[in-house]
């Protein structure tokens, strides 16, 4: 669908350096990077607001690098949503349809349909400034999706929301995606959004795309120390949840809360306890694992483990390592509390 080929661009204090990646049809692609990494600039280059200094952009094989924004067939939602303040919600959503000269009855039908799905039917007559942040965000999404764009560009769509609204909307976003089936390129600095929504992730640091891959790959095998540091060394366990049990490969892991379907759970390496024998503790999860690698990081040691095909990383001190005789190939028991798991 979208193919970005070695894009470079300097603009004010931001820079993009030879970025290349691809967003596939129907995919939710997340670009994860700290603020100032150039994420917004990248979206603006793809949207056609700025032209790149170098590189090409393709949509479905056609070169769109020189096309005007309105000729690209994509919709852009900037971070502040940029709702038209002088129009009602209804007029905001109908904007793109009116420009396409869609008949009035058709516009009406489409708006009813999308506002039903997004839960904003009761807001259609209101002006944007009377809406809450979450409501504004829904309107922005409706306005973008109603024109059925090939690709939706989202710039930090959840950043301006309070924590509760954010959590709720991230959940809803998964549902909207299922119902409306759009392709999205979403940039964010939020680890949580990447893990919750992303099919694939690209990690962007200092204007460069350092690593792209599936969420699990990127999180479990950071390309370099910089990426690992940015991602916070989290273990991401992917599997199918049934109630309080998460089935990941051969493991059955107890979750702190009920969940259904495909979910990801995060676990901090420092929350994993290693022991040579099974131990009786309050930890609900204990598995046999094999040490895959040991990396010394000064006083701490990172131990890579494999248990029934699930990769885990744990931190222990150097002295524990020596005392327990941990080395590659050794069999140990890993345990962690269900409450240490974060379900995304």
């Amino acid at each position, binding site marked *: 669908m979208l193919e970005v080929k070695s894009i470079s661009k300097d603009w004010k204090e931001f820079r993009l350096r030879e970025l290349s990646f691809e967003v596939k049809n129907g995919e939710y692609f997340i670009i994860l990077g700290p603020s100032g990494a150039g994420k917004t600039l990248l979206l603006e280059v793809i949207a*056609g607001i700025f032209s790149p200094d170098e590189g090409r952009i393709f949509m479905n094989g056609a070169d769109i690098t020189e096309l*005007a924004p*309105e000729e690209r067939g*994509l919709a852009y939602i900037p971070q502040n949503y*940029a709702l038209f303040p002088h129009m009602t919600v209804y007029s905001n959503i109908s904007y793109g349809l009116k*420009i*396409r000269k869609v008949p009035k009855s058709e516009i009406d039908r489409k708006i009813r349909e999308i506002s039903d799905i997004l839960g904003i039917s009761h807001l259609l007559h209101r002006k944007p400034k009377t809406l809450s942040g979450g409501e504004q965000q829904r309107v922005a999404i409706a306005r973008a999706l109603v024109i059925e764009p090939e690709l939706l560009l989202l710039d930090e769509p959840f950043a301006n929301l309070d924590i509760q609204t954010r959590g709720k909307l991230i959940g809803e976003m998964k549902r909207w995606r299922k119902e409306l089936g759009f392709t999205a390129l979403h940039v964010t600095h939020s680890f949580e959004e990447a893990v919750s929504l992303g099919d694939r992730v690209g990690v962007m640091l200092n204007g460069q795309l350092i690593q792209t891959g599936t969420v699990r790959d990127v999180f479990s095998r950071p390309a370099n120390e910089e990426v690992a540091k940015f991602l916070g060394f989290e273990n991401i366990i992917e599997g199918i949840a049934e109630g309080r049990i998460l089935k990941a490969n051969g493991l059955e892991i107890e979750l702190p809360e009920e969940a259904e379907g495909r979910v990801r759970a995060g676990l901090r390496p420092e929350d994993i306890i290693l022991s040579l024998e099974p131990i009786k503790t309050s930890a609900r999860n204990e598995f046999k694992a094999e040490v895959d690698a040991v990396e010394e990081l000064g006083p701490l040691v990172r131990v890579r483990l494999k248990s029934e095909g699930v990769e885990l990383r744990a931190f222990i001190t150097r002295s524990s390592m020596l005392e327990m005789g941990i080395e590659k190939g050794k069999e140990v028991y890993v345990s962690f509390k269900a409450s240490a798991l974060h379900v995304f």
Partner: protein
Amino acid sequence: MRRDYTIYLFAALGSFLIVYIALPLAVIFTKQASDWGMLVRTLHDPLVLEALRNSLFTATATALIALLLGVPLGYVLARREFRGKSLIQAVVDVPIVIPHSVVGIMLLVTFSSAILDSYTGIIAAMLFVSAPFTINAARDGFLAVDERLEHVARTLGASQMKAFFTVSLPMALSSILSGAIMTWARAISEVGAILIVAYYPKTAQVLVMEYFNNYGLRSSRPISVILVVMSLTIFIMLRWLVGREANA
């Protein structure tokens, strides 16, 4: 408890200017009220009526021309950075610092008989001194419109022109109209440049001067009062309309 008097001091100092502006207005109205006959006679003077009509017509035409040419310029100044932009900005503000008699001379030297003693001449003089209000107001109005709104309009399928007319212009409109009203007000109060460029067709503001020179204060007062009433009424009405629009 310690009271803070700064704001009262400032208000006291500032009120001097308010009184200074309001007092002559009040005085001229009161004086004229005691000389009702003269006012009625002036209102029946065909020369006066003709002059008032000329003033209204030329000031309105000036405001419209300023809108047509000033709004695009204001948009460019708000949206683009280019070499020599500060020079252009300075040129826009030049009319404010040039004495208006000099403006008249300059226009006459440049365009000579093309504008001498004609409606074109009056409008030319008015436009020169009053266009900056519309240009600057339009620029400020467009600056206040988040550029991202235009970007979003573009990605939703609007051409640059369409985005301008559906998003930027409606949002900047109240600021632009305020500027146009200022342009109109400045135009109808212009004398210096008009005196030199186009003494005829006679405008009310020139007629006031002529009556003062020929017949003295008492004869020029009624036209002054009529001119003030007319200008203020229209000015206040337009401001009110624009203000209501802006709050809607």
